[in-house]
């Protein structure tokens, strides 16, 4: 929406004023909890709130990291829009959504020469999303797979090498679907032999048919905690969309949980760090990003209490046991078979979400 069109529309002008008033009120009320200028303010996912990750950085730099958790890029960007410029210093964001922040003029280019880009797994640098107009705005810090998570004592691990098993009668009522439309639609695409990067509106009917087959076999469709709980408690034996992010953190308590990369492939997810253009503390923000990308920071982030995931830095200081749980040494093979996260444009994104809604409502 252009500034010109907004200024002509009295409804939008009033709405902007009201938003500003609401934001000002929220800031006034939240002043006590808002950071002081010397602090670092980070919009994060739950894996960054682990004290084991933050405290070493805070101690080393004599800084307090104030974190605000959010789920979903839309919710995160809404928080930024309702804040004052400069309130936030860094943000964790889906790698495929870095361009959304750049389009809104939120992010600062990152100095590539001060980041360990050469140490990253090449497939997860995601330059198609993290580099915009020749400038790097995001750096991938963690990744993993939306694939098949399962209990290997309850299902035949050989069956888990094919996505066809997810819709077979053999596992009817023993399946949970991860409640996030993009990765599971990506898995449906793999199941019908489509490449996730090439999905168009014309593919939606076939994708919907595959999703409905999955739903017919599923006992529940759950967000992170619900689907993880269902798998861990034996409510279901298979989680469609699960992966190391579900099973690795529970490996000690429940070593029967595992994940596979089926022959059709898996969907690669990745999260990036970005710095805000209006940050008042850019030096500290860069230090934070450098810390997270360092071998020590990467190991702590990868094994965060909220969820585990693969560190994007190949030199992450993980123990042998941690590497084994994350199947670190198998990554080159996994990455070769993984396909990119679906990154639809706004119109297709809306249609995909509506298709997901229809799937959820199907009896």
């Amino acid at each position, binding site marked *: 929406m252009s500034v010109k*069109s907004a200024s002509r529309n009295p409804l939008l002008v009033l709405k902007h004023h*009201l938003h500003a008033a*609401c934001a000002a009120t929220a800031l006034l009320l939240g002043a006590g909890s808002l950071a002081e200028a010397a602090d670092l303010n980070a919009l994060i996912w739950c894996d960054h709130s682990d004290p084991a990750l933050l405290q070493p950085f805070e101690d080393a730099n004599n800084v307090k990291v104030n974190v605000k958790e959010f789920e*979903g890029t*839309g919710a995160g960007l*809404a928080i930024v829009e309702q804040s004052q410029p400069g309130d936030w210093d860094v943000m964790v964001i889906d790698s495929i959504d870095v361009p959304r922040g750049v389009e809104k003029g939120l992010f600062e280019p990152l100095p590539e020469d001060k980041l360990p880009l050469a140490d990253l797994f090449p497939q997860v640098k995601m330059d198609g999303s993290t580099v915009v107009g020749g400038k790097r705005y995001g750096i991938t810090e963690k990744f993993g797979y939306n694939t098949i998570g399962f209990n290997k004592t309850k299902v035949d691990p050989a069956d888990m090498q094919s996505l066809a098993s997810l819709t077979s009668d053999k596992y009817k009522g023993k399946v949970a679907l991860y409640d996030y439309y993009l990765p599971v639609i990506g898995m449906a695409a793999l199941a019908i032999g489509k490449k996730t990067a090439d999905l168009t509106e014309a593919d939606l009917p076939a994708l919907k048919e595959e999703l409905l087959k999955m739903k017919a076999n599923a006992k529940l469709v759950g967000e992170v905690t619900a689907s993880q*709980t269902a798998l861990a408690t*034996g409510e279901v034996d298979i989680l469609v969309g699960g992966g190391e992010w579900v099973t690795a953190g529970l490996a000690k308590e429940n070593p029967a949980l595992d994940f596979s990369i089926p022959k059709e492939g898996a969907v690669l997810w990745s999260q990036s760090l970005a710095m805000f253009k209006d940050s008042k503390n850019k030096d500290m923000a860069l230090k934070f990003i450098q810390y997270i990308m360092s071998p020590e920071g990467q190991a702590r982030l990868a094994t965060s209490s909220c969820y585990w995931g693969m560190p994007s830095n190949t030199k992450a200081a993980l123990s042998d046991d941690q590497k084994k749980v994350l199947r670190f040494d198998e990554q080159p093979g996994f990455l070769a078979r993984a396909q990119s996260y679906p990154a639809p444009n706004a119109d297709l994104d809306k249609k995909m*979400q509506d298709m997901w*809604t229809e799937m959820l409502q199907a009896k």
Partner: protein
Amino acid sequence: MSTAGNRTGRALPRASDALPWALVTPALGWTLLFFVLPFVAMGLSSFTAHEGGAATWSNYSQFFANPAYWQAMVNSLQVTAIVTVVSVLLAYPFAWILAEQVPERWQRLALMLAVLPFWTSYVVRSYSWLLVLAQNGVINRALTGSGLISEPLQLANTRLATVTGFVHFFVMLLTLTIFANLKQLSPSYRKAAADLGAGPVRTFLHVILPLTLPGIMVGAFLTFVLCIGDYITPQILGGNNELLMPQLVMMQIGRRGDFPLASALSIILMAVVTVAYLACARWLKIERT
């Protein structure tokens, strides 16, 4: 003694006139700041497009054009109606026993025990129900262990689970409102009915029930409002096997940040609550005449 105001024909405000306004101003300010202002912002937002541009009805038309969106409203109304009716049917006898059968000195303790579930977190309580209703949960273990069933029933992640979680909470709320109503009833109503030859059933149906109806309606309306707008219980216990309106609203925000559509859906939900209120208010008014 005349005042300047009297001489000019204009009454000056007296301190006693200003006092009520002074007292009510904080409440009005609170309502303005935390209800009216956000509500107006939400209303305006609902008439904008996600991509920006001129004012539009498109968010509302999407709701009426998409059967999956409609279904969310139908699901919400069905679940809310079931929860409200079941909660009233369970709460009334419970409140009656508390008010009429439990000795006065034990009523306070009984009430405290009745509201014990309110002391725990809503989220924790919902997850507790999930553990009770799960495939390996308390109920299925008891049923399979006793040999009544051979395979566990699917109780969790169903509408039944959602309704159970809601009813557990709202029975307590309704019990409190109905109990308060029953305690306000003078015993002379029952004596008068008995003097006129009415038996216990007739006295209940024609005297007690009509007099406690306002309490039932207040509790039922509160149940309706809290239930239809709740996101946590269906999300945790329903297993997303069907969507309710609050879940549909949240879905628009997560990734896409479509606040205009979420606002429109919220306004529609609020309109339904308003209709329910008007229905209750009208009904209660008839009762009073």
